[in-house]
């Protein structure tokens, strides 16, 4: 029973991790289609700010 419970936990965790893998990839795909956002690259954002004279808004977001 303990082994079965362990297997179930591992399978559930694997399924949940797969779902999160998909969410993380989908988040990048969704934002990279939008010109408005620099994705996961602070240096690129700062370079753009130096070029344009704009301030920078950095959103730090943990994908659930």
């Amino acid at each position: 029973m303990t082994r079965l419970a362990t297997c179930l936990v591992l399978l559930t965790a694997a399924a949940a991790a797969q779902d999160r893998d998909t969410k993380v990839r989908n988040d990048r795909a969704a934002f990279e289609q939008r010109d408005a956002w620099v994705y996961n690259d602070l240096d690129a954002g700062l370079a753009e700010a130096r070029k344009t004279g704009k301030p920078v808004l950095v959103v730090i977001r943990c994908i659930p």
Partner: protein
Amino acid sequence: MARRDESIRHLLDQFVTVRIVQANALDLTLFDFDFDLTFAVFFLNADKTIYGRFGTRSDREAVRDISMEGFRRALEGALGLHADYPKNRAALAGKRATRMRVRQPERFPSLKKYGKSLDYDGAVAKSCMHCHQVRAAARAVLREARKPMPDEVLFPWPMPDAVGLSLDPKECATVARAAGVAEKAGFRAGDRILSLAGQPLLSIADVQWVLDTAGAPARIPAVVERKGERVELTLPLEKDWRRGSDISWRTTTWDLRRMAFGGMVLEPAPGADGKSLRLRVKHVGRYGQHAVAMRAGVRKGDIVVGFAGWTDPMTESELLARVLTKKPAGTRVDVALLRDGKRIETRIRLQ
């Protein structure tokens, strides 16, 4: 969601917007924020001067801490600071401080397995370091060194309410209600806090930053606008001002419970009379190092009436703080429980 609001979209268009979804390789000398948040905003100049922060969470429902209107005000405020930069550079200097022992989180011993970037071609979720892991890693260093955890580590980013300042989430830093220490210091409902410790404020997060970095005891100068007049006040912080904060909602408290309680999650017990310790075991960890209490025989529903010889009334947060400041890792402590009216004694080894 913010981009669907036309007025906010117009403001956002005036920024270079950067989205970061990992704590891996985060520059902790720049991005110092409440690591229990899943959403945090920084407003920066291209030279990395911080104009302000946005994003707050507490044990309350979210609408009391954060709002779209508050975000709009923060955006407007940041644009105003940017327009005045660099004349206001001196006032902004305090918004950045080197507090972490390491510059990047992968340098903490418990986070060495993480790389600098996400593995999008492989197990991307596993490669992703969460923000809350940064605080947990910093705490683990202290605990493994058998050092007491200081209040600023145990009670990070307290809400301004801890000093009696309830702020309106729809404004940058406007007092909704003043009580306790803040009221005695002269703050009043309706005051618009223009600066704290000389720093301009864009949000409740900015107020939290000033409080969190002030040290204790401390005296923080403030300038408020009241009925068109500028009023100067001083907010005193006592040595233990953070201790009234509730840390039970924090993701990072999970690891504190492993260290101090062997994996128990505690909540106020029914029938508590305020004269003695009485905390109900809401949950007992079942795996690995979070199962120490379970292996010692503790069950969900048990009532903790004694811990390490202490029997005075405490909240879970207060008991966590006492254990982690007074009992080093490796100590074995007695735990007294009530179960179905019967008293049970057991011992757990602190981690």
